[in-house]
């Protein structure tokens, strides 16, 4: 039999999805179900003078309308789940509906419940809210100024937190032969999953149980947090994440909206459904990034890097989101040295409240930003000392034999061989030839450029004791149960919660290989707090490394028990038993065999079990890794810039990633492709824009440019496999490599293309106009 782990299997979940048989939140229809709509603030900052619901209450089909005042004392504020210690963190309470003041365009003002999704909208527009507008705080740097309007009156200078890590001896900076100083703005982007958010609540007055279906990447976190917000026992709150059309971090957060739906369902005793609209999504769902990075990279003329000092000014929006505070501090600040052996580093982060929609984790969360600044700074450094950017990278790489390696900020990189993917990528691209071609084309007036990004990222959240130490309000171990039915078919339960990643396939492969079963015999159950006792969800590229490991260990435990039963039936010592390809046999004794299915039946019937062995065949594992995992790789982009229009075309894109053991190259490539599209989206097209009044100018896909398939060349991918010692699978994480690596690769390529003009940096996204202006200005000089 061929190996299953490592096989290019098509995804198990695809047939149902592409034939329209998925079961998404909006597919849920319950008897007597009501519909909810949330009236949202059109102002960035205003006092609510009055809310008149009289007309709306008279509208056909309206059942109830709640305002913030109505709910005061009934449901609590929705807390952040990442209370980073030691940074004077000030969390302003976020009530599910604004009580007397709205703080961003999209802040909830009233909840309307009616019979039917049309009726509820019609009624919503009849609510009359009188506002008195206030000056808004927009933009993190401006909002820290003394005279800036305060988002929360008692939070001085709008500073939500001020975090520092790392010390650099002054003389290292002062005596540096080379100092690169550059500011970068990692602009605000919208995760934009194809399915918007949703919540459906159903209350059973008999049992007192509230069931909440919602678009959650982590139903158990939703259960934990919402049980507090709603004042309901976790034992009475069931959270289910049905099929989901992506999340990208935007569905990690526990939002006011889910609490409202749960509350209304319980209050009215009828099911309530809320489906976020696409334009609503642009103002009511968390954004990613929005960090201003002031970077200083110090070193010698020979290319030895000495220190990196970074200041991150992070726009957290009007409230702290579920993961928000951790993104620009822990996730970013401890990774600022990237894959380089830079002896000293320091990072200072300011989290700043503004009158905008909150920001939260977005694919990569902090690591793309960290990678961006170091990979851009390295290129600027190389240019400054006249060294090839590849050579400078190689000179400073952490070397293969130095792993496990402690970086300047104290993180322990588990394993690595940074040269390997780089060498492979250069070979795929034919780098030397490229430089010649580039020279030729430049002579013809064509602007072609190449950009590199060698990255490492922190994935696989993670050791729970570390989570505790960094203020994460949860554990980050994982839970898996492998249950073998009498027929030998298997159900696997996982506390991770895929929403497009394809765990049914990859986790299935892990189990199929171990048990010697066909993939079809294995089902994965996830996303239901009633079916899975506990778990921490899917984000931070943790599912395979942590959740997959739990599945692997639980499967081993099943085999261990099954062996005892087989040994008993075959009357052989357990030590002599061999389990291969689904067959138990006795070493050296031909013909003495039991199939896995036979043992499954024996275990479940329990007619004849070894003395003292309990019936059934099922095992559970709670796996808490000893460390994070650190995938790495090398991405190379080739771009052409149209010098008359500034338009950028991505000509080639080579990605070589090392994510430890690759369980399924096909799904892994899918992750790489999607990540790259989003990372390039950040570099070239995407960007949420607010005006001075705090109005969102990019509130539809007519203005907010999501990448389209036709914007890309064929992405060339490959993997190298440097196993992780942190888990028995040797797996790292693939979900965020693309967004982490690709943004600087593209930027570096464009800057390389623009080298003849002496252009050093352009703020993202690189719209054609910005590039054209930079060229025109340099020509004018």
């Amino acid at each position: 039999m061929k190996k299953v782990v490592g096989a290019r299997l098509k995804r198990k979940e695809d047939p149902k999805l592409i034939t329209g048989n998925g079961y998404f939140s909006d597919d849920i229809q319950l008897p007597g179900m009501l519909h909810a709509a949330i009236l949202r603030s059109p102002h960035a900052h205003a006092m609510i003078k009055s809310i008149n619901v009289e007309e709306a209450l008279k509208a056909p089909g309206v059942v109830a309308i709640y305002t913030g005042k109505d709910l005061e004392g009934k449901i609590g504020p929705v807390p952040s789940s990442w209370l980073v210690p030691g940074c004077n963190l000030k969390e302003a309470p976020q009530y599910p509906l604004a009580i007397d003041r709205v703080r961003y365009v999209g802040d909830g003002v009233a909840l309307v419940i009616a019979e039917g999704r049309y009726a509820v909208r019609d009624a919503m527009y009849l609510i009359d809210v009188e506002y008195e507008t206030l000056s808004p705080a927009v933009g993190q740097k401006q909002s820290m100024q003394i005279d800036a309007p305060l988002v929360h009156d008692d939070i001085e200078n709008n500073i939500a937190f001020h975090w520092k890590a790392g010390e650099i001896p002054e003389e290292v900076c002062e005596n540096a032969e080379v100092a690169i100083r550059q500011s970068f703005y990692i602009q605000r982007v919208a995760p934009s999953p194809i399915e918007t958010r949703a919540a459906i609540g159903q209350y059973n007055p008999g049992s007192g149980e509230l069931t909440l279906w919602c678009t959650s990447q982590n139903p158990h976190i939703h259960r934990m947090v919402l049980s507090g917000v709603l004042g309901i026992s976790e034992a009475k709150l069931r959270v289910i994440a049905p099929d989901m059309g992506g999340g990208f971090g935007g569905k990690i957060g526990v939002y006011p909206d889910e609490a409202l739906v749960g509350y209304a369902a319980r209050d009215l005793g009828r099911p309530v459904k809320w489906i976020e609209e696409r334009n609503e999504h642009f103002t009511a769902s968390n954004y990613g990034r929005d960090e201003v990075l002031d970077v200083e990279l110090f070193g010698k003329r020979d290319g030895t890097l000495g220190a990196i000092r970074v200041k991150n000014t992070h726009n957290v929006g009007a409230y702290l989101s579920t993961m928000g505070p951790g993104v620009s501090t822990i996730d970013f600040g401890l990774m600022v040295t990237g894959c380089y052996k830079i002896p000293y580093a320091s990072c200072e982060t300011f989290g700043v409240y503004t009158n905008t929609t909150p920001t939260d984790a977005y694919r990569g969360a902090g690591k793309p930003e960290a990678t961006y600044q170091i990979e851009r700074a390295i290129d600027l450094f190389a240019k400054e000392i006249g060294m090839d950017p590849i050579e400078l990278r190689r000179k400073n790489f952490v070397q293969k034999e130095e792993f496990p390696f402690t970086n300047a900020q104290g993180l322990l990189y588990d394993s690595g061989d940074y040269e390997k993917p780089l060498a492979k990528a250069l070979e795929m691209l034919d780098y030397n030839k490229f430089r010649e071609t580039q020279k030729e084309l430049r002579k013809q007036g064509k602007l072609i450029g190449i950009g590199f990004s060698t990255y490492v990222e922190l994935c696989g959240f993670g050791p729970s004791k570390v989570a505790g130490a960094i203020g994460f309000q949860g554990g980050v171990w994982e839970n898996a149960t492998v249950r073998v039915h009498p027929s030998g078919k298997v159900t696997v339960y996982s506390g991770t919660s895929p929403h497009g990643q394809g765990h049914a396939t990859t986790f299935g492969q892990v189990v199929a290989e171990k048990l010697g079963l066909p993939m079809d015999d294995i089902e994965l159950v996830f996303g239901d707090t009633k079916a899975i006792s506990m778990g921490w969800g899917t984000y931070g590229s943790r599912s395979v490394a942590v959740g997959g490991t739990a599945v692997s260990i639980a499967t081993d435990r099943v085999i261990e028990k099954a062996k005892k039963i087989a040994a008993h039936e075959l009357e052989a010592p357990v030590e002599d038993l061999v389990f291969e390809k689904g067959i138990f046999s006795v070493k050296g004794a031909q013909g003495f065999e039991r199939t896995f299915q036979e043992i499954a039946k024996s275990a479940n019937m329990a007619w004849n079990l070894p003395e003292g062995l309990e019936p059934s065949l099922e095992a559970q594992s709670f796996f808490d890794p000893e460390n994070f995992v650190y995938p790495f790789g090398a991405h190379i982009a080739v771009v052409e810039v149209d010098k008359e229009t500034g338009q950028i075309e991505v000509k080639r894109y080579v990605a070589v990633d090392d994510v430890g053991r690759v369980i399924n190259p096909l799904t892994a490539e899918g992750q790489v492709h999607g990540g790259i599209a989003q990372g390039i989206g950040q570099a070239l097209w995407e960007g949420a824009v607010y005006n001075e009044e705090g109005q969102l100018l990019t509130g539809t896909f007519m203005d907010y440019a999501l990448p389209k398939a036709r914007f890309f060349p064929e992405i060339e991918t490959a993997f190298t496999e440097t196993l992780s010692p942190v888990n028995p699978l040797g797996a790292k994480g693939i979900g965020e490599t693309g967004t982490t690596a690709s943004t600087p690769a593209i930027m570096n390529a464009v800057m390389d293309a623009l080298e003849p003009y002496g252009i050093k940096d352009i703020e993202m996204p690189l719209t054609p106009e910005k590039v054209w202006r930079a060229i025109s200005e340099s020509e004018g000089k």
Partner: protein
Amino acid sequence: MIPSKFDYVRVNSIDEAIQQLKQFNGEGMLIAGGHSLVPLLKFRLSEPGALIDISRISELKGVRKEGDRIVIGALTTHFQIANDPIVKEYIPVLSETVRQIGDLQVRNRGTIGGNIAHADPAADLPAAAFVLDAEIAIHGEDGPETMNIDSFIVGPLITMLPENSVLTSISFAIPPAHTNAEYLKFSHPASGYPVIGVAVVAGVGENDVIDYIRIAITGVGNVAYRATSVEEKLLGQTLSQTLLKEAAQLAAEEGDMASDLFTSEDYRRNLCKVYTERALKSVFYSN
């Protein structure tokens, strides 16, 4: 993104459509492919009392040649036009233009009549309509009439379509046999609509003298237009690279360029110059 309440009727003939429009007394709106109207409804920017669905009126579909013109029924979809052999043979610039509209779903649903009647200042089709001297056929309460595209589209989302009438077909002049044509579009990365679209039909006669020229520009301002002064500059002149450059410069200087979140006025002007020059070069110098 949920429209307010409206009635819905499907009609099977032009007369019936006019009848229904009258019945709803200004409150009714025709719907064809719905790909411009439905977004407006969803944002509640348009709240008609009734939608009168004309999409199944078969007499409004199809392409035919009538003398020196190609007549296209209002309900013919972008996709059908892009792939129609008559269009490809006689007015290939139209097929080139509609091929660049939206994406495949949009081209499958959107109709030529809807596109022109909607008069979106950023639509692609008007550029081709101008260079192909489009005549708009309308059927109203008093019977049929025609209007030239010049006088039909008067402003952003504003046309001279009379009340209670249906746009029935659009006819395009077949350009002289010796001409070439091009439509060049710079797409907005979000919407896919043109930030600028330049259509050119042109030909040279003896001694490299330009004897036929039509240029139209869309996407840059309030309304698509024919760049007549640029045409005048070129007509009767001997073709040269310098001449085309100057013509492009003129196009850029003369146009009313809008600014928006994606482009400033300056930048659009630059695009206008670059795209006009490229379109002209492609027409005059390719093959």
